[in-house]
């Protein structure tokens, strides 16, 4: 790995994003609009927004980072820029780490903005720390980047890349405890949900909304999510090939 290459690549990726005002507006505006609708929708049910709000907030970076990573890296593959980089003294890890770092910035930006809107304007409450919720959501975004890197290597077109999103993300959203608490999932599904990173993100966010103490469950959820993120990014890195057919 070369810090010079990674730094240059991060600057280049963020420059590309910065130029694309529409994408930036969607990145911040779309989840905000959805949270506003959610808060309004649940306004007549006491305590409901507090129950769902933080967990849904944490799902956004996973979905968004998955989409932008898979499309951005696929663009590098199809435009020939990845091949050019692979013909130079650039390692595969330089490339994937650059994307992970750049998109963590975007995840932090998105989650911070969204937290501000939810906690300051929409009246979402938490007994724990907002910083922890931002941190957990950012980890979740990084997991999305890992999934995105891997799925873009399976996809041949942007069209296919986007199709991978429901396959990878929907089961996670269904089984993460948002609809049915994970302890009440039927046999078999509970075990599957144990293998999905989003489950741990939601567990951790649930802990973060009820307390400030770092309990065993809380720490183990966060570290399991961290472990998943790390492994996903490594898998993502191995899907980048120097030589292609």
């Amino acid at each position, binding site marked *: 790995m070369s810090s010079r290459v990674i730094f240059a690549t991060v600057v280049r990726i963020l420059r590309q994003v910065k130029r694309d005002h529409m994408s930036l507006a969607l990145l911040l505006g779309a989840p905000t609009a959805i949270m506003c609708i959610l808060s309004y929708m649940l306004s007549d049910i006491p305590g409901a927004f507090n129950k769902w709000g933080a967990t849904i907030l944490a799902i956004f970076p996973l979905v968004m980072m998955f989409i932008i990573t898979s499309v951005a890296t696929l663009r590098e593959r199809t435009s020939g820029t990845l091949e050019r980089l692979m013909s*130079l003294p650039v390692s595969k890890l330089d490339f994937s780490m650059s994307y992970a770092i750049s998109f963590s910035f975007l995840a932090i930006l998105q989650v911070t903005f969204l937290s501000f809107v939810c906690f300051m304007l929409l009246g979402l409450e938490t007994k724990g720390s907002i910083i922890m919720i931002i941190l957990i959501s950012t980890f979740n975004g990084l997991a999305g980047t890992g999934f995105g890197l891997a799925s873009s290597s399976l996809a041949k077109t942007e069209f296919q890349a986007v199709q991978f999103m429901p396959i990878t993300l929907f089961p996670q959203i269904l089984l993460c405890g948002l609809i049915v608490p994970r302890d009440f999932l039927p046999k078999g599904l509970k075990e599957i949900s144990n293998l999905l990173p989003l489950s741990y993100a939601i567990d951790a966010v649930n802990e973060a909304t009820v307390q400030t103490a770092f309990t065993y469950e809380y720490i183990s959820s966060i570290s399991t999510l961290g472990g998943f993120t790390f492994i996903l990014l490594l898998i993502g890195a191995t899907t980048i090939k120097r030589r292609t057919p």
Partner: protein
Amino acid sequence: MTSIKINNLTVERGKRDVVENVNLNITEGKITGLLGPSGCGKTTLMRSIVGVQIIKSGEIFILGEESGSKEVRGEVGYMSQDPALYEDISVNHNIGYFAKVLGVKKNRINEVLDLTELNDYKKSLVGNLSGGERARLSLGISILSKPKILILDEPTVGVDPLLRRKLWNVFSKLSEEGHTLLISSHVMDEAEYCEDIILMRSGNVVYNGSKSNLINKTDEKNIEEAFIKIINKNEDR
């Protein structure tokens, strides 16, 4: 001195051998023209030399090291047929990015922009450039680090004759500075500027040597006629 040595190279693409048992020596410091009709395996051969192509069998050595290995990656500049640029950022930001990746100093960027006559386009978005301008930028990026070996895949395709002349002047200059250049084209006339010639046809190398030798051997001044004569001779055998 041999700078690129290829032994028994075979490359398979889509269950077909698109490069078949090729043996080559490419001499240091010369311009070698890789000529042949479209689809004869030129690009695949070049990608193999650069080290980005999966090969079926054979070996390729660049300056004595295996192609694609860490040691030689910085010594091989590659310009592919696709411009391989970031369209949504400016010329300056594209070339600046690759300069940072390669650890090249800032004044070299200006040298390259001068050489490729892109100074007036520094601030333009690459997406707004014409095909010829993109080709020049892509070439500029591949020569940034002054690599010893330059692999240029159809760098003059679709450019106007004036620019073509200019580009060949750039290539001659690079060759005089000691760079080894391998330049492909499906236009046989481009052999005019090359010292050495490799003629390819359906995955095979039909001639590899100096241009003067090719002309003597076939008694043809025109490379296209020489190409036809060699193919006919091979088929008679």
